[in-house]
């Protein structure tokens, strides 16, 4: 059986091609795969479609990839007040944006992971986000159709992985990471510690190994914003 543990960050992202659709975990400075992001920046992958809650904090988190002009389209809920490199590219029309309500962003990814072709919701009805979407009247309420968001890769951050890819997360650094792990063809987790199979109590596993394809230990940058 081919092992999931990669020796380096570079090896873990080596095959990510130009034009890839990539999810990036993290929220509020916590749980960002900052070391994988730095590796992808060094690799120089271009024309990325990025799916992320926000668009970076100055050069931190995804900010570096906007600074390097590696991202052409972003699906996000809260680009954020300190995403200056994104805002500059957006104003110059070098990057396009689909703005999605945060919970709907989660649920569209979850739908992708769950093998669902979408769902109807009352969130966004009558607002800008409803434009161009199918509307139906269900259970007495106006609803819009939301479609799944899939990805070629998910770059996520966890606390511990065992060698099979079972993951745990620390405090509120969990956030988007488990949802993205389910929704991508290839999920790459940077973790603080890799432990032997069986070392994580099965009752404490937060993301089961079936959703995780590559694991790399990263001791460097934890908070980049």
């Amino acid at each position: 059986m081919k092992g999931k543990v990669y020796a380096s960050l570079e090896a873990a992202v080596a095959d990510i091609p130009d034009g890839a659709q990539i999810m990036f975990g993290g929220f509020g400075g916590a749980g960002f795969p900052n070391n994988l992001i730095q590796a992808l920046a060094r690799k120089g992958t271009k024309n990325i479609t990025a799916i992320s809650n926000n668009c970076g904090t100055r050069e931190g988190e995804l900010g570096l990839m906007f600074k390097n002009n590696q991202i052409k389209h972003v699906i996000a809920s809260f680009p954020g007040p300190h995403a200056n490199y994104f805002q500059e590219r957006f104003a110059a029309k070098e990057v396009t944006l689909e703005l999605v309500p945060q919970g709907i962003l989660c649920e569209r990814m979850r739908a992708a992971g769950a093998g669902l072709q979408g769902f109807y919701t009352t969130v966004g009805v009558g607002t800008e986000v409803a434009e161009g979407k199918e509307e139906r009247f269900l259970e007495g309420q106006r609803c819009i159709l939301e479609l799944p968001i899939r990805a070629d890769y998910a770059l996520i951050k966890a606390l511990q992985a065992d060698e099979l890819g079972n993951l745990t997360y620390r405090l509120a650094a969990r956030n988007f990471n488990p949802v993205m792990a389910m929704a991508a063809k290839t999920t790459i987790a940077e973790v603080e510690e890799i432990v032997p199979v069986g070392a994580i109590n099965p009752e404490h596993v937060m993301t089961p190994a079936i959703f995780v394809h590559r694991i790399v230990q990263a001791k460097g940058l934890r908070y980049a914003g």
Partner: protein
Amino acid sequence: MPAKTRLTREQIAQRAALELPDGAYVNLGWGIPNLIADYLPKGITVYFHSENGILGMGRRAKPGEEDFDLVDAMKVPVTLTPGASFFHQADAHLMTRGGHIDVAVLGGFQVSEKGDLANWKIPGAKGSGSIGGAMDIATGAKMLIVCMEHTTRDGAPKIVKKCTYPLTALACVDTIITDLAVVDVKPEGLVLREVARGWAPEEVQALTSAHLIARQKIPEMSFV
């Protein structure tokens, strides 16, 4: 009549805190709502939900106590209260959208007479705008309170017949608490419940472009 004053942001938060029932699960938005946690009345226990996956969020962390894996939705290091739990973002919004949050308190740019809320983008403002969790929270909370100044800095009413700013959600607001009044959104229209000290209902109406229903003698806004 006593001198007319407008409530401070802290006083609006203090008034809003009185609306939280004991035992409620509560989500507080950015701005004035974020101040409410400091003003809970004695004997009232509520459980704060944070959209990044925390239930039972406590006070802000003191210097030296910060852990940057334990932050609120504004990226501020916080603490936990006993019985707290963590979960992923999809479950956090399952709670907001699925009707599990008893009371949400959000800031607002405009509220309409039908209870429509606009709170995420100012028309003509530079940049992309950011929605965050506001649409999920406004749509799904069992009760939604909006805390805001009664008028803009230029004096334009923020309680309006119809919102002209980009909408967050339709017919979602239950109560509006401003520096001048408490207003309930009812099927019959906007009902004036309280006015700030020294203000007559007609004076509040003059700064409101939607019609306010003032049924009886309107009591003064209370704080404690």
